[in-house]
């Protein structure tokens, strides 16, 4: 398995804060939780109506979902299982290696 399966259950959320209040709440949330920013590159660059893509460890996905619901912040899940997506991306490699 690639990367020793370390990304199993990890997800990528796409979050779109609709106003300054939501921006503030989201910054607070994502500062506290250790997430990997895909875009923008850092929490300070989060702004109103701009999409935020974050890679969230599997143990934190439930908590983030609850917080976003509580703050009524619009979000979607871009990638529901990162490990699977990684293997799909370079799947040919493992088959190629096998060949």
């Amino acid at each position, binding site marked *: 398995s690639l990367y020793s399966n370390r990304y199993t259950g990890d997800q*990528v959320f796409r979050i779109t804060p609709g106003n300054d209040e939501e921006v503030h709440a989201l910054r607070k949330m994502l500062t506290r939780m250790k997430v990997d920013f895909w875009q923008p*590159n*850092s929490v*300070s660059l989060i702004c109103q109506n701009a999409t935020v893509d974050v*890679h969230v460890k599997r143990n934190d996905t439930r908590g983030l979902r609850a917080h976003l619901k509580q703050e009524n912040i619009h979000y979607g899940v871009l*990638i529901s299982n990162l490990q699977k997506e990684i293997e799909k991306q370079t799947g040919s490699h493992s088959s190629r290696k096998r060949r």
Partner: protein
Amino acid sequence: SESQYDYEVYHSLEEIQSWMFEMNRTHPYLVDMFSVGKSYEGRPLYVLQLGKRSRPQKKAVWIDCGVHAREWIGPAFCQWFVKEAINSYLYDSAMRRLLNQLNFYIMPVFNVDGYHFSWTTDRFWRKTRSKNHKFHCRGVDANRNWKVKWCEEGASSHPCDDTYCGPYPESEPEVKAVAKFLRKHKKRVKAYISIHAYAQMLLYPYSYKYATIPNFNCVESAAHNAVTALYSAYGVKYRYGPASTTLYVSSGSSIDWAYRNGIRYAFAFELRDTGHFGFLLPESLISPTCTETMRAVKAIATGLLKKC
């Protein structure tokens, strides 16, 4: 061998470096290979020079890929560019004209240590792999470490942040090596292009401030022509404009440094996609992404041969 090399899959650092040696060996009239220095972990920083051997003072274009380790489509594009340029030299008069009149310096993997780490350990690693003597965190954002407005807005001074600017400008051996090469050849290098992902944008200076560059009209029309050429391939739209307003403000970036160093055409491409796959762009999309980007880069290079 080169003919069996698959340009439609992602390759490890070792495979890319072997491929560079093979291209250098099999195309002595169009390809030259050299190293501009060593990375933090001691790996060579290889560059391919493409172009017909002629007068020493030929104008040149610099293209680097893989500044951020996880952006794998970048190195894939640099390899694609070399393959296309060499393969089309004989039958494509436009490409032949470009290679006869320009040299292209292609650096397929700028951040070799980080790229290797993204293959072996952390797929989403972004920075270099340099050690910090005060913090356990490693790496510097190689696109915040250039000596231009270093570590101001849009960069972080905290070593654990992904946009960490480093302990001082050009602290990263990779950045210092490329900056040294471009300073040395500044009279000949007419365009600087850095390949990143993802967002589908074509960016030009300034990144560090909301202001207009002096040769805005020429650069703007070059960018417009480039995204139009890109769109002609598969109808994919790229936004374009100054990095500060099109993406966000960031300091210490390579395009601002190149521009300030006298390279009047400095661009950063943010390749596909806009987030559906993000950094995990499938191998099936390497071909269309590189094909359309090839058209954009050719448009920029062709523009250099005209007066603006």
